[in-house]
């Protein structure tokens, strides 16, 4: 895991750009990540733009009682998805506190994001 973290590499990179609840993008992106991991691929996640909201602590249910995506985040480790990154600029733009996040993710500057994308065979954006 440590090697993959420092080298930023892997098989599949899933970029999550949408916040929870407002659309199904985040959930469907996470589903793709879980499936890729279940198929034995080395999967990285990048939370970008409003997608960093996925990491906010204290999330609740949707309008009709949907459980949302917060419980899914807790399953990532079970699937060996441990390479979690977030766009550092997005976190500060939204004023989120890194300490209050539900899961730790490594903040990346723009140049690192380009490297991350280049270092994965398949990149899926949701």
């Amino acid at each position: 895991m440590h090697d993959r973290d420092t080298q930023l590499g892997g098989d599949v990179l899933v970029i999550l750009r949408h916040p929870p609840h407002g659309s199904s993008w985040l959930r469907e992106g996470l589903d793709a990540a879980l499936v890729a991991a279940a198929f034995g691929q080395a999967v990285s996640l990048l939370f970008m733009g409003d997608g960093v909201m996925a990491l906010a602590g204290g999330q609740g249910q949707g309008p009709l009682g949907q459980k949302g995506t917060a419980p899914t985040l807790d399953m990532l480790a079970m699937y060996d998805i441990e390479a979690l990154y977030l766009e550092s600029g997005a976190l500060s733009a939204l004023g989120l506190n890194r300490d209050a996040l539900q899961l730790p993710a490594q903040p990346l500057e723009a140049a690192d994001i380009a490297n991350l994308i280049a270092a994965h065979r398949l990149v899926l954006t949701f």
Partner: protein
Amino acid sequence: MRYALLVQGPPYSRQAAHSALRFARALLARGHTLESVFFYHDGVYNAARLAAPPQDEPHLVDAWRALHDEHGTRLQVCIAAALRRGLLDEREASRHGKTGHSVEPPFELTGLGQLIDLGLGCDRLVTFSP
């Protein structure tokens, strides 16, 4: 007051339909009347009778149906928007020579003029878009 809702978001992929259902329940709880929910744009997908979401997720088609059954709210689906997207009731399926149908009562296929009628005839029209 007499309310109508315009729903333009598809079920599941966007929150619009969920928000509309929540708003519908709240306005009824405040003693208002909900005359109709009009489905347009991708909102027409809310009428897909075969929807089979996982058991631990809300079933939007059933939730709309319950609204109709309990409160008499009409569920009006723009026919032009629906046909393009493969949402046909038995009558339209037969008219287009297709076997099977994808929309059934209490959802009713209707013209866009109904939306204008609702917008001008009800006290409030509230739109939920994707």
